[in-house]
C-alpha cells in the first residue's frame, strides 16, 4: 500500500484528488482520489455505497464535482456533459450498455461521428468497413447490419468497447463489465482489455470479483464510505488485506437483537431456480428467527424474495409455509398463507403516497374491514390507530398523506400494513435504506420485537453492520446462489464480505 502522492511524478493520464460530491444532504463522495497510468489496468473496489459509481459519473461528465481536482494529461478539466468527456478521450462502459436497440450495430458504434461524404451524407459503406475493421481487431464476429436489439450482453459490451476504440479513447472505464458474462465471454473481454492496455490506454476496472481483479489488473484502489483508502500494486496486496480495507470499521456495537425463542420451521424454500437470475436457492426460516440475506447489490436477493412471495416467476423449486406448499406466481395465496413482503422501494411499491396514513396502513386488510363491500373511514381509522400506536408512527393525524412522512415513518406505515394481516413470515427488503440513524434503530428494535413474538423474519440488507447486528443467521448470496450459511456467532464483516465476493467452495 502506498499513497499516490508519494509516487514518482510520472505523467498520469488521469488524476483525481480530493473530489467531493453531495446530493442535497446526502454526501456521496468526500475524498475521491485516483491516479490512472497509461498502459495500466487499474481496479477500483469498495462496498456498495462506497462512492465508486459517483466517482465514475464525475469522470464521465454526468455529474459535476463540488470540490477537488480533476486532471487529464496534467490539465485541469471540468466536464459539463458526457459529450465533453467523450471528446477529451474518456469512454465509459456502464453496467447496463447504452445502445439504441432499433438501430444497426454499425450505426450504434458511429452515432454522431459517422463518416461523411458529399452534402454531409453519411458514407454507409465506409462506416460498415470501419465497423468490420474494429471487429476484426477485437477478434469478434458480429453482423454489422443487424439491429442491436437481441444482442447478448457480452456482444453489447463488445460493441461498447468498439465504440470506445473508435473514439480512440485514452481512458476506458468499465463499470462491472463482467457481471452478466459467462466464463468464456469474460476471457474474451480480458483479452481485449489486455490488448488495449498494451496499446498504452488506461483502463479503470470496477468489479466485485476479486479473482478477476487479481487476474487482470496491475493496481488496485480501495474506497470506503465515499473516501479513498489505499492504492496498491496488485502483487503487494492480498484478498484479506483488500477486504479489511473495504470494511474497516467497527461493526459490533450497533443493533443488538434481543434473544428470542427460536421455534419451528415456518418458511421452507427448496431448490428455487430461475435461469439467469438465481439457482438452487434453499433455506429455511424458523419462528422467532431473523435470517439475513446478505450480498452485493445485484446478487439476486430481491429477486429471490419476490419469487418466494409469488410476484416473480421461478422455473423450478418449491416454497412451503408451515409445511404447505405455496403456488407459484400467486401473491394473494402467499398473503393468505401468512407471508408479507415489505419491498425495497417503499415509495414506489410499498405506499400509495397520495393516500392517508390510515388508508395505507389498512390497504392489505381492506377486504376484511369492509362491511357489505363498503369500507368506512371509521373502520380504517380504528384499525390503523392500533398499529400506528404499536409501531409509534409519528404523524400529525391518520389523515395525513403518507408521502409527507419521513422515510422512517413511511417504513413503519408499510410495516403496519403488513403486520395488520397477521403474518407468520415477514420478508423485509432493505428495511432501513434512506432512513436516518435514529429511526433506523427504531426499525431494528421493531423487527427484533416481532421476532420475539414468534414471526419468522427474512431480512435483505446490503449494510453489513445491520446484517451482523440483527441476524441470527446470515445467508450470503453471490450471483444468484447461496454461497454461505453463517450462524450469528461466526458472522464477521470479513467472512460475509468474502463469501459475497467469491463463488461457493473457494477457500479464503
Amino acid at each position, binding site marked *: 500500500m502506498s499513497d499516490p502522492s508519494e509516487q514518482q511524478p510520472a505523467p498520469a493520464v488521469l488524476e483525481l484528488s480530493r473530489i467531493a460530491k453531495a446530493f442535497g444532504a446526502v454526501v456521496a463522495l468526500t475524498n475521491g482520489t485516483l491516479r490512472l497510468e497509461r498502459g495500466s489496468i487499474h481496479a477500483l473496489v469498495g462496498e456498495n455505497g462506497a462512492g465508486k459509481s459517483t466517482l465514475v459519473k464525475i469522470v464521465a*461528465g*454526468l455529474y459535476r464535482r463540488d470540490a477537488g481536482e480533476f486532471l487529464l494529461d496534467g490539465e485541469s478539466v471540468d466536464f459539463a*456533459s*458526457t*459529450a*465533453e*468527456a*467523450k471528446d477529451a478521450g474518456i469512454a465509459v462502459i*456502464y453496467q447496463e450498455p*447504452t*445502445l*439504441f*436497440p*432499433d*438501430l444497426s450495430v454499425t*450505426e450504434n458504434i458511429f*452515432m*454522431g461521428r*459517422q463518416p*461523411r461524404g458529399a*452534402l*454531409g*451524407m*453519411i458514407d454507409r459503406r465506409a462506416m460498415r468497413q470501419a465497423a468490420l475493421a474494429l471487429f476484426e481487431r477485437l477478434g469478434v464476429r458480429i*453482423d454489422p*447490419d*443487424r*439491429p442491436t*436489439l*437481441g*444482442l*447478448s450482453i457480452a*456482444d453489447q459490451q463488445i460493441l461498447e468497447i468498439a465504440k470506445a476504440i473508435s473514439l480512440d479513447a485514452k481512458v476506458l472505464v468499465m463499470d462491472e463489465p463482467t457481471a452478466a458474462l459467462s466464463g468464456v465471454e469474460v476471457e474474451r473481454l480480458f483479452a481485449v482489455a489486455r490488448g488495449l492496455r498494451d496499446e498504452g490506454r488506461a483502463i479503470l476496472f470496477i468489479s466485485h470479483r476479486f479473482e478477476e481483479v487479481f487476474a487482470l489488473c496491475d493496481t488496485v484502489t480501495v474506497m470506503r464510505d465515499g473516501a479513498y483508502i489505499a492504492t496498491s500494486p496488485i502483487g503487494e496486496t492480498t484478498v484479506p488485506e483488500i477486504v479489511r480495507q473495504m470494511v474497516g470499521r467497527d461493526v459490533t456495537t450497533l443493533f443488538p437483537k434481543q434473544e428470542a425463542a427460536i421455534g419451528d420451521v415456518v418458511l421452507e424454500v427448496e431448490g428455487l431456480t430461475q435461469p439467469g437470475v438465481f439457482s438452487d436457492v434453499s433455506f429455511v426460516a424458523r419462528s422467532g428467527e431473523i435470517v439475513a440475506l446478505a450480498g452485493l447489490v445485484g446478487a439476486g436477493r430481491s429477486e429471490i424474495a419476490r419469487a418466494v412471495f409469488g410476484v416473480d416467476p421461478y422455473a423450478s423449486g418449491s416454497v412451503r409455509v408451515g409445511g404447505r406448499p405455496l403456488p407459484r406466481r400467486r401473491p394473494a395465496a402467499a398473503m393468505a398463507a401468512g407471508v408479507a413482503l415489505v419491498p425495497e422501494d417503499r415509495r414506489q411499491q410499498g405506499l400509495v403516497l397520495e393516500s392517508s396514513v390510515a388508508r395505507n396502513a389498512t390497504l392489505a386488510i381492506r377486504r376484511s374491514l369492509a362491511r357489505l363491500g363498503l369500507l368506512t373511514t371509521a373502520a380504517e381509522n380504528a384499525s390503523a390507530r392500533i398499529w400506528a400506536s404499536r409501531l409509534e408512527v409519528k404523524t400529525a393525524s391518520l389523515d395525513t398523506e403518507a408521502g409527507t412522512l419521513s422515510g422512517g415513518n413511511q417504513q413503519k406505515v408499510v410495516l403496519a400494513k403488513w403486520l395488520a394481516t397477521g403474518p407468520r413470515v415477514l420478508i423485509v427488503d432493505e428495511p432501513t435504506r434512506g432512513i436516518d440513524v435514529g429511526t433506523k434503530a427504531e426499525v431494528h428494535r421493531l423487527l427484533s420485537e416481532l421476532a420475539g413474538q414468534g414471526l419468522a423474519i427474512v431480512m435483505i440488507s446490503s449494510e453489513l453492520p445491520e446484517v451482523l447486528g440483527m441476524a441470527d443467521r446470515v445467508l450470503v448470496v453471490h450471483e444468484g446462489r447461496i454461497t454461505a450459511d453463517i450462524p450469528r456467532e461466526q458472522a464477521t464483516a470479513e467472512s460475509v464480505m468474502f463469501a459475497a465476493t467469491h463463488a461457493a467452495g473457494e477457500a479464503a
Partner: protein
Amino acid sequence: MSRLAHVLKARETGILLALVLVVVATTIKNPAFVFSGDGWRDLLLTPSILMLVAVGQAIVIVTRSVDLSVGSVVGLSAYLTGRVFIDLPGIPWPLVFLIGLVFGGLLGLVNGALVAFARVPALVITLGTLYVYRGINVMWTGSDRINSSDMPREFLALGTGSLLGIPWLTIIAVVVLVIAGWFLRTQRAGRELYAIGSDPAAAELYGLKVTRRVLAAFVVCGALAGLAGVLYAARYGTVSSQAGSGWELDAVGAAVIGGVAIFGGSGTVWGAAIGAYLLLTINRALPVIGVQDFWQRAVVGVLILGAIVLDRVLAVRQSRRLTEARES
C-alpha cells in the same frame, strides 16, 4: 441482403400494396375512380395536404414524442393566409408560403420548448396547445370566414391546377417528402432523431444533443403543418375557424399505419406518407364500394389496430429470430 430483397421486406412495401389493392378493387367496381379526369386528380390531390402533416408528425413520433396540435396549426395558418391576402393586397403570392412555414415553425417552437423545458410529456403539452391554438383561431375568426374571392386567382389555381396531369399540391408534398426522407436517412442529425427515440436515456448518456434535436423536430413538424395550412387555403378557397380540426388524429393514424413506431426509433416518413394516402383513399373508396357511412370510421379504426398488431407481430418475430441467431 440484396437491395431488392430489402425493398420487398420493408414495412412500407406492405402498406403500398394495401393502397394499390384498395385502388384496384374500387376501380373494378367503378372505373371512374381512376379512369376519369376528376377521379385521377382527386386520387392524387385529396391526400396531399394530409401527407405533409403526416410527414411532420412522423418526424416527431420518431423521437418518441407526438404533436397533437398540428390540426390547429393547419387551421391558424390557413386563416392567416387568407388574412394576409385581405390585409396586404398585392402581396406576391409566393411570399405567403414563406409566411406559413415560418408561422407554423414558431407554433412548433412553442410546443417544442414546452416539451423540452417543462419536462411534461408531449402528449399533454400538445393536447393543451391543440385547444389554445384552436381557441385563438376562433377568437380571431369569429363567425367570419375567408372566401375564395378574397384570394388571388393564381394562388387558387395552384390549389387545383396540375402539371403534366399531376396536381401542384402533390408535387409540393412529394418534394417535401423526398427531402425529409433524404435528411432522416443520410444526415447525422436525422439518424440522431432515431437514436433519441430508440432510447432517450441512452442518447443522453451518449452525449447527443437531445433537447436541441427534439426541439428541431417540433419546429419542422409545425412548419410543415403551417405549409399545409397555406395549401389548404389554396385548395378549398374557404377557411372557417374549424379548418383542419381533427387532422392531428389522421396524421398520427397515417404515421402508425405507415409503420412509424409510436414509441419512437423506427419507421420512415415514406411510410407515413403512404399511410396518409391509404387513409384518405379508403375514406373515398368505401362509399364507392357501397359500404355504409356508419362503417367508414370503423374501417379506419380497424386499419390502425391492424397496423399496430402487424407491427407487434413483426417485432416479436424479429426479436425471436435475432435471439435464435445469437444462440446458434
